[in-house]
């Protein structure tokens, strides 16, 4: 019954399972709903965010933004601004080295084009940076901005990716960007003349021949909008010089280490002179997987030799921050009448905005992270990311997958309907299975193509089964036929990765203190998702102590273990993996000493709740005794170890979304009344944090489905730069939600864990579109599904 045509790769799932250390048994800390390690400061309003960080004599910086979508700066006069009392520095492109770089918080070398300069002679979108000011107060800095006069030569602008790709369209970037590492094969723009920042093709099998076997071919074009992360803590940082004349940057970032490296390049400083500190972060969702304000504060701090603080206003977040790529997606697939999917293709064209940060990887992920959800004989994915004179799109939770899944999961629903099949049944028949190999991850080795990614765990069947049961899928319900308010049911499925295969490194060092507590110094970046708590639970479990013995420390590039940062759903799987390694090494050191004291072989001993156990049972020794022994006694040493984790793998979490919608057919308003979210995350290290991730992601995705869109006028100016007209979901817009956690153990993950943070953003938008189809018999292929689109579709019925 399953789709038997699917056969990429080969190999045996048991191999992976056997490599697993078989330690996943009964746990004491992992799997518990533990309180967050930072709960108290967060609920008491303690000043623990970068936004609240202060230094003596701190200056305040502001940025002059371009009012034009595309222009050359002919002349800037800063004299009046500099003459204003309280102004300490004004910087323009004439004052800064012109260093081509990418602001993408990615490992070196970044897989994004090197098309950005801290300040440039050319501005490429309304909001682009023109000058920086530092002054004694924010008000003075703002006044100084109004005193800078800029003479622009206007250039033709282009906002639509289709137009931007045409011959003769205004060109945003030069092909021969000179960057510090020129000559190497990175940092290039795919086709500068046609504004194509990045391009990707992924194929598997013989598409045409697979299609020729199809009984039915289904096609559709979908589009998803330009949206904002709307992190509640805006981008903010403080830069200052310390007692060693080093540059310290306290920043609200997801990527402290990448930022340190990029800052060094842009400011032409040695990495050794920079320290990046990340306090609590008020949300990221990808918008802070960027070096953004750090070089502004740093350049001004270096210039004035005073601490400099800069924070984006909400208006700036909505005009000159980072956004999710809007994409147009064409789907075309072939199926047999019995419901076997034979071939799927996706062609996507994404709008990169003015600079190509993350454009290659996000665009690639739109197909790469999505099409593998289904078995087929052949796959074809083509994608372009295109420069336009709009604000910069980059990384956002889901990283291309929400765009891809809206198209794919709407398309699958359309296919099932064409076949008169229950969409759930169609998915059951065709979705990827445990042990399958990823057709999107084919590599050639010695002339042979094989897949390098196997799905060793896949809890999608359980997600579908439990989700459908909890939702009542297939049960009769009051549809409201003939009434103004109609109801419908819809569903969607999704998957994601856990870290970026081969592009991750994370972990921690762990050190024992004399009271039996442990410092866990991790580079993993808690941005609100609670990774510090998760990692503390992993450390506590692996060490054999309770949570209160774990001391977490926010990232500081001087003292934390190197880490790629918080993105791509990597913290639990990658950094957690590293923490576990470190904890095991430290535990071994403790047991070595204990074994010596107790005359017992360390490998026969264990630690439970800080008590040292021998095969005879609990001993009189506790971890604190070993600490004292090593710090003051005969076995003098600092018990300490580091562990890191990297892998060329990225296990997939799976997700199923079920929704009920109500549609007011007179106003076109849509309300989601019920949602069941079922997630296979491998193992819930902390079920409360995991369900919190799901609920938040689903809410965000509901905004994507129904209301969120950054709108522009014909000059490329944002028309709704504020919450009043950029509508995110409120308590009253949310459905009754049930979240189900499915644990299909991932043997390579810490305690069986995969990831949870991104995959639940993928299902809501297509599920809503599918439910609307169920309710009204109309198909909306473009997000957000506004009341006007509903009425239009009903009119055309």
């Amino acid at each position: 019954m399953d789709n038997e045509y699917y056969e990429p790769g080969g190999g045996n799932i048991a191999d992976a399972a056997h490599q697993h250390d078989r330690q996943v048994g009964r746990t004491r800390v992992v799997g518990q709903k533990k309180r967050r390690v930072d709960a108290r400061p967060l609920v008491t309003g303690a000043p623990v965010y970068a936004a609240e960080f202060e230094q003596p004599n701190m200056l305040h910086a502001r940025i002059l933004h371009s009012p034009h979508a595309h222009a050359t700066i002919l002349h800037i006069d800063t004299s009046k601004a500099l003459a204003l009392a309280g102004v300490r520095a004004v910087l323009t492109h004439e004052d800064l080295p012109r260093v081509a770089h990418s602001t993408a918080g990615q490992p070196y070398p970044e897989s994004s084009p090197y098309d950005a300069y801290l300040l440039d002679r050319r501005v490429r979108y309304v909001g682009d940076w023109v000058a920086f000011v530092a002054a004694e107060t924010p008000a003075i800095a703002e006044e100084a901005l109004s005193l800078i006069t800029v003479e622009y030569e206007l250039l033709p602008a282009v906002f639509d990716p289709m137009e931007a790709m045409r011959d003769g369209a205004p060109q945003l970037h030069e092909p021969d960007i000179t960057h510090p590492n020129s000559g190497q094969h990175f940092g290039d723009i795919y086709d500068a003349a046609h504004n194509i920042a990045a391009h990707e093709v992924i194929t598997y099998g013989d598409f045409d021949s697979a299609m020729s076997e199809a009984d039915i071919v289904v096609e559709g074009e979908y589009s998803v909008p330009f949206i904002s992360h709307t992190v509640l803590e805006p981008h903010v940082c403080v830069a200052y010089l310390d007692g060693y004349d080093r540059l310290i940057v306290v920043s609200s970032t997801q990527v402290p280490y990448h930022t340190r490296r990029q800052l060094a390049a842009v400011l032409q400083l040695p990495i050794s002179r920079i320290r990046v500190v990340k306090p609590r972060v008020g949300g990221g969702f990808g918008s802070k997987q960027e070096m953004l304000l750090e070089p502004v504060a740093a350049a001004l701090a270096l210039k004035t030799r005073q601490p400099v603080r800069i924070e984006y206003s909400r208006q700036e977040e909505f005009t000159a921050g980072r956004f999710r790529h809007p994409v147009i997606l064409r789907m075309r697939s072939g199926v047999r009448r019995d419901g076997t999917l034979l071939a799927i293709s996706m062609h996507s064209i994404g709008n990169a905005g003015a600079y190509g940060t993350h454009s290659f990887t996000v665009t690639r992920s739109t197909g790469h992270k999505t099409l593998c959800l289904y078995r087929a004989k052949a796959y074809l994915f083509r994608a372009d990311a295109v420069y336009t004179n709009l604000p910069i799109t980059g990384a956002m939770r889901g990283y291309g997958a929400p765009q891809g899944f809206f198209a794919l999961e709407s398309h699958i629903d359309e296919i099932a309907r064409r076949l008169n099949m229950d969409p759930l049944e169609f998915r059951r028949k065709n979705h990827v299975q445990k042990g399958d190999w990823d057709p999107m991850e084919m590599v050639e080795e010695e002339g042979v193509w094989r897949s390098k990614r196997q799905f060793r765990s896949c809890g999608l069947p359980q997600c579908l089964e439990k989700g459908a049961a909890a939702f009542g899928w297939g049960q009769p319900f009051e549809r409201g036929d003939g009434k103004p308010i109609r109801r419908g049911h819809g569903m969607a499925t999704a998957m994601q990765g856990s870290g970026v295969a081969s592009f991750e490194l994370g972990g921690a060092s762990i050190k024992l203190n004399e009271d039996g507590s442990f410092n866990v110094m991790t580079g993993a970046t808690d941005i609100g998702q609670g990774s510090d708590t998760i990692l503390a639970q992993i450390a506590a479990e692996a060490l054999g102590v309770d949570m209160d013995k774990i001391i977490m420390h926010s990232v500081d590039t001087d003292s934390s273990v190197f880490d790629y940062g918080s993105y791509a759903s990597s913290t639990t799987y990658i950094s957690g993996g590293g923490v576990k390694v470190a904890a095991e090494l430290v535990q071994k050191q403790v047991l070595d000493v204990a074994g010596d004291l107790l005359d017992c072989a360390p490998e026969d001993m264990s630690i439970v709740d800080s008590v040292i156990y021998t095969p005879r049972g609990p001993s009189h020794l506790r971890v604190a005794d070993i600490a004292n022994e090593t710090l003051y006694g005969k076995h003098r040493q600092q018990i300490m170890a580091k562990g890191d984790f990297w892998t060329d793998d990225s296990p997939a979490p799976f997700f199923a979304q079920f929704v009920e919608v109500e549609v007011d057919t007179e106003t076109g308003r849509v309300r989601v009344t019920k949602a069941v979210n079922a997630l296979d995350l491998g193992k819930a290290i902390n079920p409360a944090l995991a369900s919190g991730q799901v609920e938040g992601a689903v809410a965000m995705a509901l905004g994507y489905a129904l209301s969120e869109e950054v709108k522009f006028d014909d000059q490329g100016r944002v028309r709704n730069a504020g919450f009043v007209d950029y509508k995110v979901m409120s308590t009253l817009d949310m459905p009754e939600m049930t979240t189900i956690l499915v644990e299909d153990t991932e043997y390579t993950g810490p305690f069986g864990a995969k990831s949870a943070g991104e995959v639940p953003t993928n299902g809501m938008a297509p599920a809503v579109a599918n439910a609307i189809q169920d309710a009204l018999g109309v198909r909306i292929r473009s997000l957000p599904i506004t009341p006007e689109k509903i009425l239009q579709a009903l009119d055309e019925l």
Partner: protein
Amino acid sequence: MLKIAAYHSPTTLIEAAALLAEDGRTAIAGGTDLLVNPRYMVGVREVVDIRRLGLNYIRVENGWLYIGAGATMRTVAQRVELQGLANGILARGAAVCGSPNIRNMATLAGNIASALPSADTPPALLALDAEVVLVGMRGERVVPLDSFFVGPAKSVRERDLIRELRIPLAGSNALRGGFYKIGRTAEDISMVNAAATLKIQDGKISMARLVLGAVAPVPLRVSRAEEALVGQAATEETFQRVAEIVRDEVRPITDHRATAEYRRRISAVATVRALRQAAGLATPGEEWQHA
């Protein structure tokens, strides 16, 4: 941060009126428009706080209901006198202005003073035949709300202070009302709102007022629709016919919230739904309110 040169906090109406008589000054009450929307600060150098003038009252006197300029949306929404008046349409209009925190700050008078076409209380106030009591250097004048609004953020107020709004209570026991708001999400500025009051005698409509917001430069009383209601039976058919008139009469614009065409369509929907409530054919909770 407002760029102002002075903050005044008078304690008498005379003082306040005198302060406001000068150029470059404006009143501040809840601040929810003034501190948020730069259009109200154009040319303003000083602000005059009107919240210490003892105008926090809502009271009934001599057949009138008076709502002082200090009364917040929350008070208006919660007061029994208003909940009982024409099915509580004004209380309900106030109850959907922004969030609970905004309603604790925003005043009803401010909502009138700022004169936005999309505001949520003018339709109900107009349907209740309210009047605006203005105080200026030349003394007091009373302006029917009907002739108060001139255009977006423009009214006949000039520099005068709104001291209070007043609503005639004579015959109001027989007044039935309806209010319907359509936003993009549950809590939103209206794409369209509508308020109606009816008097029904022996099944026939003897008096009708119908007002729509966000469909014209000012909150729009649809006289042709009102005329078409009077003398008719309070039935679904009547309301559907009237909705067609409303559709023709409204003059909406396209902006980033909605297109003119869409507003035109839903103005008919909001009309019917408000009228149904007024006629007792629907209860406010029944057809989902987005607020």
